[in-house]
């Protein structure tokens, strides 16, 4: 009945896949789990996975909620570029890193509101609505950076990307805290249930008195803010804003993380924790490819193959097949125990 065991059950497949991905890392690089503490900072490949995975992890927090409403946000990569550019140009103009962060969040928030307006008020299909900003966003970012890579040396801002807090890289802290915060707010308030209701049956939800328009705008707003944070981290990490390449294709990684997290693209029930695990799985796969020492031209193909494997294992057909193989297996006993939940369901 309690939430604890059901959460574990929900994220078990993702945990198993993550464990498998980490195991692959250990196979290609036996010292994978080794973590050192040098110069007041934690070092190690596992830390790298958590650190490098930060942008996608941040993106998939918002993306999970958007997808739960039966929507999608293709613009997050472009929004990262915009907010990175805004943060960089703010410090270049001599403002502090706090102002830069606020300006970047404001830019990301505006982008989110724009998407929310198109989807919730004008009722444009989310995939088309967010495509607008996906295309236009990089142009806007280039206007902000005036077409060049805008480098900066503001220590405060750089700390957000490559600094540490208590030895832990800042990006890790940011995504873990934000993920925990959003999960907490969404599950402790009624927000999660209302978002799921909209995704499952918007008509019914509206008739039950849910303000779907405001909720939708809020969800896209949050996604914009997440993208802004991710954009700032990426810019701070390379000490510059690259309007063309910052966050490029990351919207697809974020969507993939949500899907690997077992969330349906058709909306409805969602789990942010599972999506975050999905983001870590993707980063672990990236890590395997890097550590294996394969020539870089293999990277994308291997990544695609591994992800395809995960998706095939998770597909409903495969689930049925596994179920059938187990049900027709030599042991007759489990059949009785497995028959029960089915019976419950039809009552």
């Amino acid at each position, binding site marked *: *009945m309690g939430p604890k065991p059901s959460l574990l059950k929900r994220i078990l497949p993702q945990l198993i896949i993550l464990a498998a991905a980490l195991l692959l890392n250990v196979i290609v690089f036996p010292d994978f789990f080794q973590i050192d503490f040098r110069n007041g900072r934690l070092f190690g490949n596992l830390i790298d996975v958590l650190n490098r995975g930060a942008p996608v992890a941040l993106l998939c927090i918002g993306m999970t909620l958007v997808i739960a409403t039966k929507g999608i946000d293709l613009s997050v990569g472009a929004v990262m570029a915009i907010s990175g550019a805004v943060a960089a140009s703010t410090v270049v103009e001599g403002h502090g890193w706090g102002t830069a962060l606020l300006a970047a969040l404001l830019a990301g928030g505006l982008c989110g509101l724009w998407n929310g307006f198109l989807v919730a008020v004008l009722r444009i299909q989310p995939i088309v609505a967010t495509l607008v900003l996906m295309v236009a966003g990089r142009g806007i970012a280039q206007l902000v950076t005036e077409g060049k890579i805008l480098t900066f040396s503001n220590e405060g801002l750089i700390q957000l990307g490559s600094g540490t807090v208590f030895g832990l890289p800042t990006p890790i802290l940011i995504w873990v805290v934000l993920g925990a915060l959003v999960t907490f707010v969404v599950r*402790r*308030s*009624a*927000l999660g*249930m*209302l978002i*799921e*209701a909209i995704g*499952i*049956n918007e*008509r*019914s*939800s*509206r*008739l*039950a*008195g*849910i*303000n779907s328009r405001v*909720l939708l705008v809020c969800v896209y707003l949050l996604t914009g803010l997440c993208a802004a944070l991710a954009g700032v981290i990426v810019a701070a990490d390379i000490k510059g804003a690259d309007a063309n390449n910052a966050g490029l294709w990351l919207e697809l990684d974020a969507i993939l993380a949500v899907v690997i997290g077992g969330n349906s693209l058709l909306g*409805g*029930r969602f789990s942010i924790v599972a999506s975050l695990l999905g983001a870590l799985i993707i980063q672990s796969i990236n890590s395997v490819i890097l550590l294996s020492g394969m020539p870089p031209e293999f990277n994308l193909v291997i990544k695609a193959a591994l992800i395809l494997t995960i998706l095939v294992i998770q597909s409903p057909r495969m689930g049925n097949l596994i179920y059938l193989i187990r049900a027709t297996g030599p042991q007759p006993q489990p059949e009785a125990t497995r028959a029960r939940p089915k019976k*419950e*369901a*039809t*009552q």
Partner: protein
Amino acid sequence: MNDMTPSLAAPMLHARGISKFFPGTIALDDVELVLHAGEVHALLGENGAGKSTLIKCLTGAYRRDGGVIILDGAEVAPESTAASQKLGIGTVYQEVNLLPNLTVAENLFLGRQPMRGPFLARRKMNAEARDVLASYGLDIDPAEPLSAYSVAIQQVVAIARAVEMSGKVLILDEPTASLDRDEVALLFGVIRQLTARGLAVVFVTHFLDQVFEISDRATILRNGRIVDSCIIRDVTQRDVVTMMLGRQLESRVERKTVAPAGKALVEFKGLTKRGMIEPFDLTVHEGEVVGLAGLLGSGRSETCNLIFGVVAADEGETHLRGQPVSINRPRDAVAQRFALCPEDRKVDGIVGDLSVRDNIIIALQARQGWMKPIPRAKVQEIAERYVRALDIRLASLDMPIRLLSGGNQQKALLARWLATNPDFLILDEPTRGIDVGAHAEIIALIDQLRADGMALLVASSELEELVAYSTRVIVLRDRKQVGELNGDEITPDNIVRAIADEKEDA
């Protein structure tokens, strides 16, 4: 009308002993349908009577479980709609199922376009299309996209396509549902031409006036059985309504004597939405159940939806306890402690994948706002209370609501709204598609809520039921209120009379 005496000629189509079973129900039980060349034959019955099933059996969309179909003297057994089209049975549905972005000519000839070698002979196709349409009295440009024309013209194009491809029997499934008066006249002109050409036309509709205007004969279905097949000239609208609605005397519910209603709670003045419902006034008092009676399409659900703000009204005022209130969205209605259990549970009611618990709490939570979550313990308490009070049968409150039976889903939706403690409860077909036990319980609940002082508005197609719980019955017809019955006047006979009568006095 035509001069042929249809009974003497051999029928164009004779379907005999048609049966169709679905798991748990008999959809069609030994049904017979005789169609003569040159007649318009109305197929009548309320929802669930078996009209659609019969049509689907004739067109091969369903495999029938018993019976013979004889078309033009030969036995046929169409396996698909395409096969029945080839045999000569064409169908046109209410929602025109053509392709609006293709041209009129393309729609007309799709699948059998005139070709020149590998290429489409477009000019030839357009010329042929123009000729075909001219024979239906339509002078339109066949090269224009279909969507450029009104629904009525699209309907005629669909008919032309069906007739060109089939040419013996034409089935029209509610073709006039979204047409205005002039468009209906246009359509009827086309139908008369077709019968003059010797086609047999099956006309399915809920509009009795239209049945009496165009049909020669009618077959009336109820609960999957034939009630009667009659010549329209020999019967009155009242006869037809009585046959459609039936009278189940054995299950007659006793009408209780009812305490007088309290003071007026809600008042609607001149509320209207063009094309949906004519302006109406309605007052509902505390401790009163107002029944809404009428045939399908008469405006029952439309009234409920307009009151609750599902669709915004064009004009009119709503007063709550004498104060004007504005209700443009369901959210506004919920805030005023209105509640609506919609007619279509699956589409408008349940949130299928959410748990029963969430489904029960959702309206109350939505009204409180997301920032004030109802504590888990309280949610559990409310859900359990209503599950017990309404006797909702379930394995666990955690199970998705879509797995519950229809009756239990309906009770869970009632629980959703009762949990918001409404002052004004609107129920649209509260007992449709649910089993007998749950049916009786819901009727008892309506009675109980009225006795507790709630104001209720209940739309139902079941007359016995309306008689059982209503303190007043409003009768609707053709999207207008046409009568009101009070106290002892409320009997099934009187309701039938009110639904059918207007025409006979005219």
